[in-house]
């Protein structure tokens, strides 16, 4: 691998980084770093760094590296070298400018997709290392403005979009009314204690993808699922503070989420189509696994269809392809279930290549899309390989069972003028399932 490390992108302006770094001194930096890098964190970080032989095999795994014509600057090992290695080598004696750069690399040049971990002969997880860099930068107050604002939103509302309690409930009620124009008896049951399922979503609001609640409600109503949604803070299953390094708010959001499920005495939490690295917050709190079982929507819909609780009335006519979200695939075998659903609902399915756990990241995940418009072009340049992959399918519909991927792919399609549209799995299911109680509103 070439050793020269240059940064080809133009300078980006972000007050979260610029003003945050301006408030720092080298002493402050050293103190914070020594606080973070101790105990267990220090031990496994040292193991990673001591194990890495700089072979560069991780490079070919990284969509940023591939999208930038194999520029070594974007190789995972170089990202690590430019951040934590320097921090360790200099025992935390690094400059504010260094921290600003480290934050930019960690927050906007790595989606924590973990593809590189599969290519590393030692299995070094660069995502873990980058998360520590993000944590250090957060503790130093150097986090991109937009994602810090999202973290602030979580701290107040427990959701990522500053949705107030009344707006949330009102949004559910509006969705229910809209759905009743189609199915007169359909309900979105709010605060139903003892339901089997608590449906958790990524803070929607009426003007932003609220329709997926409506569609999920239709699917669950058709399948006769005993479900509910809370009227209190805690419905949001994303927890973007995982990605900023604000562990305390991450824990608080997760605590609220699971305590809401415990209060409602539900048996399971159904997670909307989401690729969040979900089991970090619960571990910070001391829960080894989820205290209340979490079911991913892909698995949930798969079981409904497999068990005959929903049936297919018609098939989706247009050829479709599937984007495999990174954590859905690397964390489990859900990709098989996604394909089962697509093959059952769509006339023609065209695989993207590579796919499943080898799929390229959408370049939006792990908070990259949430860093705001300052970084949008950087995200687009990092997704060139994804755009090529999409174009090679020659289909017009891509299914993305994840909100970040959905948004990221919309951006990619627009930027590269691919002429495609993005759908959730629930969009396809909603269109294709037998709905026994259709009412035409006259």
């Amino acid at each position, binding site marked *: 691998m070439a050793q020269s490390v240059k940064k080809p992108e133009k300078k980006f302006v972000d*007050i979260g980084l610029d003003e945050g770094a301006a408030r720092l001194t080298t002493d402050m930096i050293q103190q914070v770093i020594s606080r973070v890098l101790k105990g267990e964190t220090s031990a496994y970080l040292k193991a990673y760094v001591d194990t890495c032989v700089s072979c560069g095999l991780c490079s070919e795994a990284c969509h940023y590296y591939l999208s930038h014509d194999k520029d070594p600057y974007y190789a995972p090992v170089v990202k690590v070298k430019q951040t934590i290695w320097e921090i360790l080598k200099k025992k935390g004696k690094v400059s504010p400018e260094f921290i600003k750069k480290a934050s930019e690399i960690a927050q906007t040049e790595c989606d924590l997709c973990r593809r590189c971990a599969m290519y590393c002969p030692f299995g070094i997880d660069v995502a873990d290392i980058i998360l520590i860099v993000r944590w250090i930068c957060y503790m130093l107050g150097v986090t991109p403005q937009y994602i810090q604002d999202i973290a602030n939103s979580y701290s107040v509302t427990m959701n990522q979009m500053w949705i107030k*309690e*009344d707006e949330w409930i009102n949004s559910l009620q509006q969705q229910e009314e809209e759905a009743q124009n189609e199915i007169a008896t359909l309900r979105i049951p709010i605060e139903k204690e003892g339901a089997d399922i608590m449906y958790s979503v990524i803070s929607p609001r009426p003007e932003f993808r609220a329709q997926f609640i409506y569609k999920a409600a239709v699917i669950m109503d058709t399948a006769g699922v005993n479900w509910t949604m809370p009227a209190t803070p805690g419905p949001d299953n994303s927890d973007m503070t995982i990605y900023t390094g604000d562990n305390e708010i991450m824990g608080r959001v997760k605590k609220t989420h699971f305590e809401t499920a415990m209060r409602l005495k539900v*048996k399971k939490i159904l997670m909307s189509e989401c690729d969040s690295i979900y089991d970090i917050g619960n571990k910070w709190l*001391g829960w*080894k*696994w989820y205290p209340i079982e979490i079911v991913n929507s892909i698995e949930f819909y798969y079981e409904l269809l497999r068990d005959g609780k929903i049936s297919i009335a018609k098939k989706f006519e247009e050829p479709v392809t599937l984007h495999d979200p990174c954590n859905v695939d690397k964390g489990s075998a859900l990709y098989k279930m996604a394909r089962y659903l697509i093959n059952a609902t769509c006339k023609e399915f065209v695989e993207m290549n590579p796919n499943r756990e080898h799929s390229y990241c959408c370049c939006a995940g792990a908070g990259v899309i949430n860093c705001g418009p300052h970084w949008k072009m950087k995200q687009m340049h990092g997704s060139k390989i994804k755009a090529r992959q999409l174009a090679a399918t020659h289909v017009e519909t891509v299914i993305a069972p994840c909100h970040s991927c959905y948004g990221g792919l919309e951006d990619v399609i627009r930027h590269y003028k691919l002429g495609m549209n993005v759908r959730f799995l629930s969009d396809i299911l909603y269109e294709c399932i037998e709905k026994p109680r259709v009412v035409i509103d006259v």
Partner: protein
Amino acid sequence: MLYSNCWNWETGTRLVANTGNWKAKFEWVEEPNVSPDGEKIAAIVKIGKGEFNVCVNGKIWGNHFDRIWHTRFGPAGRLTALVSQKGKWTVAVDGNAWKNSFDYVWNTIFSPNGENIAATIRQDSQYGVVVNDESWGKMFYDINNLTISPDGKRTVAVVQTVAFRKGDIFKFQEGCYTAAPDGKAWDRNFVNVWGLAFSPNSKKLAAEVRTSLYDYTVAVDGALWQDTFSCVWAPVFSPDNKAVAAPVRVADKWTLAENGKQIWDRKFFQLWGQIYSPDGSKLAAIIAPKFGKWTIAVGGHPWITTFSDLITDVVFSPDGNSVAAAGRDKGRWTIVVDDQSWKDTYDMAWQPVFSPDSRNVAAKVGKKEYYTIVINGKPWKHYCEALWNPVFSPNGNKVLIRAIENGKYYRRVLPITKI
């Protein structure tokens, strides 16, 4: 006030309502609520397009509404609902809507004696509280965590007093939120305020606060504890009103602090849900003695019994000598009392209830689609479609069971020896 003194405790079973028939009478029937004394069962029903009502023991309220949600019985048996007419929302109590209506109303809460009812409101994009049909008057940019005092005369909420644009991360860090007891904001703002608690005499107020992005502590009537911590959880007052206890995170471990000083000499992987015994002599809390293990600590001493998944709904007995909780181990729920788990496990378990004499513990539990009551680990051999928490008679010899069986709602009073 212990209302159960006034209830009918005559042993026997009485059919209160044939709820199964309601589905034939109305377009739809929502999940029912039952009054604390078991005498009434109520559900929101749809009468026609855009017409909703509440059916109580088979009879509907005199007024229809455009929309109704969140029916709840208060401790004194009054039935509230959040109702909408022509786009405006208010609270209806036993079918009578309050005179004042708002752009939106939510989160109905009751004083312990049930006499006072409060809810949060939105009017003209501003937020406040309404108590017994009277608004605080003062409105704020946002509101959450509505809480009512033990005497029912005071309310408090977390409020936003400073406006800031979305994305203004530095303004946010200056502190835009505070607590507003009775609508009067504390004179100091914080980055965040959560977990509000009134003292038992209703005179003091404690809250967990974040003073910067990295510093957490407890504020009592706006005054901060001397030390800050890397995190805290919600505080509680001691029964004598003198102490405030809160979990605090110190050097990546959790312990319990009282009035700002650490009072337990042990630290745990996690600690929350602390409660005082009724006489204030003991403190119990949910703890994780190590990662992935959950139990109760009383006075800082962990129980031997641990649960892999969670512990919740901790309660002291009235005499303060026992502690009970619901817990889940390897996916199965049970009840644990004084470090001893009940033998049976369940798909779900609700908060255990002590008898007034502290000698017996009952809990609602669920298996598959059915629910029953378990007393001291022994199940009642009835399997109900719906069931509410058991209530012991004032002398502790009987238990009130409120249950729907075969589509009919029954009020049962059984001697506990019959279970």
